[in-house]
């Protein structure tokens, strides 16, 4: 590949991953350095874990941003150039991976220098662990977005993989295969090196297959010779199509965020929410599945039923990823499809955004209530003998998890509107997803816990009190805040939502839809 082509690829597709990678690396370093519970010698290991988690999201977002299969405008210009499209895609993917990996390696080097471990060995193992994880996650996302011919499906698939490797418990003797760890490199070297090599190879193969698929224009534009995928119809003609069958709606997750209603024309957010609920079978199913999975993951391989109390905390971790995915493209998608109707609507932009937020929040809360029922019953049965745990579980679910998801929905909906107004639909939605994740993770920084007492910190606090503060049982890096700060959470959330609402409407009003 010509070095000039690589230069232009870097110029076009590299800016976003590079900014994200630098930001992620700095954030991971801050998180590791401020985590006072971790001994200095383990800082590289902790930084690797944070970095892999955050950088993995960065790699997933970057991989699917190099070609949006759903956009003919990006595919067609490649039709009449002799350079093979699959090679171009592969070169773009290589560039975004390199731009992701280099800042992370620098951050890992800094973390190693700050520790008292052998520099080269410690740095090399964490750098290799990071490389294999990023290649795997990026490859999976690229592969899924190519096969599904939709960027969002790639993002969802990649993030699901990340969540699975985070939450699925691995027996102690097999910890070396954990994707997010590097510390076991010298304890079980064969298993560790073997698993890293396997992850790397799987990532490379999936990335290569995805690139070849992305070079098959007939497949991208029409579904090719397979019958399993929809014709790629432009949004201007969607209204002409027959309504999708129920199974099609059910598996439509990822194509759009929550299904769109049209209540904005009548200024009725209840109608909007109702439409979303009627058509949103899959979000309900996904969230229910997530909650049940979280419950089972908390119980663990030893089947310690009382640990089900951690389920809401794990659900919040999942929700931090899934809620932005479900909600952040609702306004941009509607503005894109219905810009004419919106411009003719008597509804003002601030009122429209307010309606959309209200509708989304109501839907998410209803979905959560329905989805949580089985697991609520399940874990209440398991801990009913312990009144303190039962009350804590109920308070945690209804007092913290649900309001946190509502807060997250409101923030994601607004960030989606804000970023897409600036950068166009696809890039805007990807930026919004990345933005909201970083925004929420910023709440994990201990010093910010007091001024930004977001859900996970509040949940940890309550869990700690319910269990008499066996802090070693608590997952996550949060500093547990004093109990009285729980009262600040709704206030802080409300202030944040109002400020964001004012800022986003003020900025959006300056630009055309």
């Amino acid at each position, binding site marked *: 590949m*010509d070095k*000039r*082509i690589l230069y*232009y690829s870097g*110029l*076009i597709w590299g*800016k976003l991953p590079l900014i994200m990678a630098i930001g992620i690396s700095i954030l991971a370093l801050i998180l590791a350095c401020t985590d006072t519970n971790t001994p200095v010698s383990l800082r590289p290991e902790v930084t690797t874990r944070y970095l892999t988690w955050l950088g993995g999201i960065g790699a997933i977002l970057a991989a699917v941003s190099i070609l949006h299969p759903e*956009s*003919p*405008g*990006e*595919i*067609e*210009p*490649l*039709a*009449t*150039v*002799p*350079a093979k499209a699959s090679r*171009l895609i592969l070169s773009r993917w290589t560039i975004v991976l390199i731009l992701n990996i280099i800042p992370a390696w620098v951050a890992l080097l800094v973390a190693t220098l700050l520790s008292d471990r052998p520099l080269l060995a410690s740095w090399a193992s964490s750098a290799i662990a990071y490389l294999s994880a990023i290649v795997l996650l990026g490859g999976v996302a690229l592969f899924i977005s190519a096969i599904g011919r939709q960027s969002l499906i790639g993002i969802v698939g990649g993030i699901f993989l990340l969540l699975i490797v985070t939450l699925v418990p691995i027996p102690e003797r097999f910890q070396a295969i954990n994707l997010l760890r590097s510390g076991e490199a010298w304890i079980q070297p064969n298993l560790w090196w073997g698993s890293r090599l396997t992850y790397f190879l799987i990532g490379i193969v999936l990335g290569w297959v995805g690139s070849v698929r992305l070079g098959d*224009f*007939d497949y991208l*534009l*029409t*579904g*090719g*010779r*397979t*019958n399993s*995928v*929809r*014709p790629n119809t432009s949004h201007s*003609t969607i209204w002409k199509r027959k309504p999708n069958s129920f199974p099609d709606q059910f598996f439509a997750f990822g194509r759009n965020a929550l299904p769109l209603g049209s209540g904005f024309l009548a200024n009725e957010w209840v109608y909007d929410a109702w439409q979303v609920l009627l058509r949103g079978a899959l979000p309900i199913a996904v969230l229910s599945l997530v909650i049940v999975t979280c419950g089972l993951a908390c119980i663990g391989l030893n089947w310690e039923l009382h640990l089900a109390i951690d389920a809401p905390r794990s659900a919040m971790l999942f929700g931090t990823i899934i809620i932005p995915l479900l909600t952040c493209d609702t306004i941009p998608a509607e503005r894109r499809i219905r810009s004419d109707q919106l411009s003719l609507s008597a509804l003002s932009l601030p009122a429209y955004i307010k309606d959309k937020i209200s509708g989304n929040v109501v839907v998410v809360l209803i979905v959560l209530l329905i989805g949580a029922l089985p697991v609520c019953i399940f874990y209440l049965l398991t801990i009913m003998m312990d009144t303190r745990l039962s009350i804590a579980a109920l308070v945690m679910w209804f007092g913290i998890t649900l309001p946190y998801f509502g807060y997250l929905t409101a923030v994601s909906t607004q960030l989606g509107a804000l970023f897409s107004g600036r950068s166009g639909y696809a890039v805007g939605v990807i930026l919004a997803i990345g933005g909201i994740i970083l925004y929420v993770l910023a709440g994990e920084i201990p010093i910010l816990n007091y001024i930004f007492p977001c859900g996970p910190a509040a949940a940890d606090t309550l869990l700690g009190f319910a269990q008499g503060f066996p802090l070693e049982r608590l997952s996550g890096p949060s500093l547990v805040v004093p109990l009285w700060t729980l009262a600040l959470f709704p206030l802080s959330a409300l202030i944040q939502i109002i400020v964001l609402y004012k800022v986003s409407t003020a900025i959006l009003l300056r630009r055309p839809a």
Partner: protein
Amino acid sequence: MITIQNLNKIYPGGCHAINDISFTFDAGVYGLLGPNGAGKTTLIRLLVGLLRPTSGKIEIDGLNLATPEGQEHARRVLGYLPQELGLHGILTVEQELDYFALLKGIRSEVARRKEVANLLEQVGLVEQHRLRIKDLSGGQKRRLGIAVSLIGQPHLLIVDEPTAGLDPAERVRFRNLLSELGAEGRVVILSTHIVDDIAQTCRELVVIQSGSILFQGSVSTLTKYAQRQVWVTTNAYEIAGLDPSQLVSSCQKEDGTETRFLGQSTPLARSVQPTLEDAYLLLINDLLRPDF
């Protein structure tokens, strides 16, 4: 030269988008006309190799597009301006052309610079060559799109809805540019549903509807078929009795509303000279005389 034989395209959902089409494009500017959803974009995507035909054959300069040699040849001799331009807003005009010249296989930097300078001159973007693409106007972006499609001096040029959204002055400028390119011995295929663009630019046209060819021939021939089938009347009773599919336009005049309509005459109507638009409407509404 492009030769198409018994071309069919059936989408996975069963939609028969192109239905047994055969024709030949030689040097000159050709119009591809049809209503929305007629199959124009599908046909164009088949011609440029974006889609694979379900059956039938496309040959470019005698080489079958289904073979690797045919695809390789097509990518070298074909220029394509899609509906959505897919330009990279972050690059400058000059960088974008340089990038596509590289992708087109022009390795020498000197040759690329010369090519880029010529193209900028040809499409009138010399003064904007250092501007970022996101800062260009709609018309300038279209001109840059045509410059991108002309990289490597292709002798087959396919443009899909190139004048959509342009103001009248830009449209005229764009049409003249296409005429010049056609006069240089290229095959230029202009796909549009703006009849006026075809009338002003093309000698020959193909009208397609529901994936099938309705007409293939010269613009003047199609217009001639419409002779004595285009009428004007100001009589309110006659206007009220017309079928909506016959109506072309109504214009308020001093002596009442003058209505232009197609097909069967009425007693008080007078015949007028048909335009290409009249002929096209007669054709797609199945109103042409049986001898057509």
